[in-house]
């Protein structure tokens, strides 16, 4: 009961923070390039907020993405090698990890955002703003990436593992020199998909006052009916997704022979 009340309290606090944040940003007087003034008047007058939103999104994407990548890669490998028939078969660890991943995969992100507030406060010192969004973003993104890594590694023909073992490779050799090295292309594709889905999650992180482009579009584009802001945000996101997709595709192609 105590925890429940506590959660509601923090959610309300977050909402208040968001409002305060918005008012604060509205005072930002930086203006954009002149040609935008006529065609996109609201984007022009909120140019400072717009830049800040892009920066926040980028920060969330890079931090949460970077952390998820590292954790996801390790746990994806752990799941692969410890599964029944794997090179380091370990049923209890595999089963436990598998269930935990399923658990977090099944919680909707918007619930995860509020449910992880205490943990966020513990780790990051706050449950709001960009800092407060990192922990839930990592929890929302990592299980997805773990499954992606698992799928990528599953594409490695077991014959390659067998060949490496027959040549006297240790399990660590097999992981680094076969599983990871031979699946760089697959992992690049998995990372691309995850990075793009993470971009979607960062938009929701506005609910804890994290800012970012999603929040910017809702607050101005939707709440104040400034459609040019909505469309500009969408275009920026489309460009961002295209860049990530192109980069990922290029790395994948370069590593596929």
């Amino acid at each position, binding site marked *: 009961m105590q925890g429940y009340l506590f959660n509601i309290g923090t959610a309300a606090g977050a909402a208040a923070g968001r409002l305060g944040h918005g008012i604060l940003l509205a005072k930002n007087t930086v203006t954009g390039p002149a040609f935008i003034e006529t065609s996109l008047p609201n984007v022009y007058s909120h140019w400072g907020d717009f830049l800040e939103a892009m920066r926040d999104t980028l920060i969330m994407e890079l931090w949460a993405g970077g952390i998820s990548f590292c954790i996801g890669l390790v746990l994806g490998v752990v799941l692969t090698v410890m599964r029944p028939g794997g090179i380091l078969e370990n049923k209890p660890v595999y089963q436990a990890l598998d269930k935990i991943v399923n658990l977090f995969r099944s919680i909707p992100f918007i619930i995860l955002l509020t449910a992880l507030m205490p943990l966020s406060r513990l780790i990051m010192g706050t449950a709001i703003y960009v800092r407060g969004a990192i922990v839930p973003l990592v929890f929302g993104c990592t299980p997805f990436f773990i499954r992606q890594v698992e799928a990528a590694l599953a594409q490695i*023909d077991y*014959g*390659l593992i*067998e*060949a*490496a*073992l*027959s*040549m*006297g*490779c*240790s399990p660590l050799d097999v992981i680094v*020199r*076969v599983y990871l*090295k*031979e699946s*760089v*292309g697959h992992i690049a594709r998995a990372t691309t998909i995850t990075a793009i889905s993470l971009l979607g999650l960062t938009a929701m992180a506005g609910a804890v006052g994290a800012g970012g482009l999603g929040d910017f579009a809702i607050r101005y584009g939707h709440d104040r009916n400034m459609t040019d802001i909505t469309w500009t945000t969408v275009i920026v996101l489309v460009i961002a997704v295209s860049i990530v997709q192109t980069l990922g595709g290029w790395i994948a192609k370069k*590593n*596929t*022979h």
Partner: protein
Amino acid sequence: MIELVNIVKEFKVTGRGEAVHAVNDVSLTVEDGDIFGIIGFSGAGKSTLVRCINLLGRPSSGKVIIDGRDMMSLSDKELREARKKIGMIFQHFNLMPSRTVEENVAFPLKGSGLTKDQIHEKVMKLLKLVEIDEKASVYPSQLSGGQKQRVAIARALANDPNILLCDEATSALDPQTTQSILQLIKRLNKELGLTVVVITHEMAVIKSICNKVAVMENGRVAESGDVFAIFTDPQQQITKNFIRTTSNVSKVYEFVENDAEVVRLKEGEVLAILHYRQPEDVSVPLISTASRRYEVNLNILFADVEIIDNKSIGDTVVILQGENDNVSEAIKYLERHNLRVEVVKDARISV
């Protein structure tokens, strides 16, 4: 020397308590310098058995002794070192697709203490040995099956092993490429003194390079021994079946069954298969002697006679024509000279 003693390998069937015996109490000895063939239909347990040699699949019970060392008692680290001296090649080659030919062959040399230049030199030497050095910088996807297997052989030889395990190494190759890979394996066996264990389901592979063979069925060795002895005097039905697959003479049974024109006999004729089983003197022209001496015609329909280990072996399908008694005498004559005469169809008038 590889000694397998009472090897048993069980697999648990999931969901049920019972275990399947993939390999059931197999004992084999492979001498140094042998090319030892293990033949069987798929599911006979031969691939499982060969994986017991380098412990890629640990036997449920039994002993694996290589050059006097009990492999099962080695620590993980010792086992990894021991595996470096046992090369292995596979049906699907198992080359690393993201590495070039040169990098693939260099793969097992990491941590060997050699410098980069020494590794390069050694890799090129190995690639020359298997005659594929001009492909050093290409990726496996650009190679044909035979070329891939050559690279795989070079990789298997990188740590100078004294044993080479071939798991269906030619099963994914066309007949011509199969022969060239087999000849390569035979050459390496001679030049490097490699002991080779060959797993296959094709008797032709055994016939062309092996000196010893074990025939496996249902996880057990049905029959084993020198290749020539097995070919000339197979004891088990499965061995006979395998030998039949190497000869096109068995077609004659089909012809008879379908009443094909070629095997339709006139009155007094006899259709027979002459099985050459090491006649004591190959220089005696048995067929023409029989023909002249007993006044019978021997019409050779087709034949499949080969020289294995400098001895002639194989079958000839003939139609004998002549007087009843003469035909019988001719058959007796041939049998006296160690030919087994199998009468397939007899159109003599019964007396």
